[in-house]
């Protein structure tokens, strides 16, 4: 079993829809949970960063962590065509240095205008 599982998609939804992106993991030592967004032919950029369980909201984006289920989610409200990108979850046991950061394979999201 891979450490981090993420559905590669593509996930195609109409503009304005609520999008749910998810990752599951097996290593209970993960404490830091991140979502990176990667546009085509660009490097990934950090979107959300959360520690331990709970929710974190930033504008249209909400990150949710359920450590008991080893399940993390990213919700996008009022999705826009500019949200079309690949979304990668990233998990770490420690918050410093980012060595040992484990990435999911990414979900390709398409928002249809």
């Amino acid at each position: 079993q891979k450490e981090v599982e993420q559905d590669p998609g593509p996930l195609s939804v109409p503009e304005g829809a609520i999008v749910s992106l998810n990752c599951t993991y097996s290593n209970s030592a993960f404490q830091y949970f991140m979502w990176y967004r990667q546009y085509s032919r660009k490097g990934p950029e950090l979107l959300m960063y959360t520690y331990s369980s709970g929710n974190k909201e930033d504008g249209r984006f909400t990150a949710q962590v359920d450590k008991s289920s080893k399940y993390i989610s990213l919700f996008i409200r009022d999705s826009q065509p500019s949200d079309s990108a690949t979304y990668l979850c990233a998990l770490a046991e420690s918050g410093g240095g980012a060595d040992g950061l484990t990435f999911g394979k990414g979900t390709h999201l398409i928002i249809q205008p």
Partner: protein
Amino acid sequence: GAGVSQSPSNKVTEKGKDVELRCDPISGHTALYWYRQSLGQGLEFLIYFQGNSAPDKSGLPSDRFSAERTGGSVSTLTIQRTQQEDSAVYLCASSLGAGGPNTGELFFGEGSRLTVL
């Protein structure tokens, strides 16, 4: 510039040739990482530098791959005797390094796209 800079952005080479990929991290970032991204394979960790030393080389796929960092800044990733399976996007990232929340954030360059014919 203010971001992570990588060169070349694209490289086409023949099988068996050596290639060098360069990364110039954000000024002041002590940690530097190389990842490889192949279609459908996600981000594969290659090597991590803290300053000039590389405490973790575990991700280098073979002894044809090597990397160095000098002056705590620029890093080069060298692939010797390239093979077709080396074709991928090689991404470099830098971060502030150890300690504290959000110091784990990686800032990525746009990558070097390598094609081995």
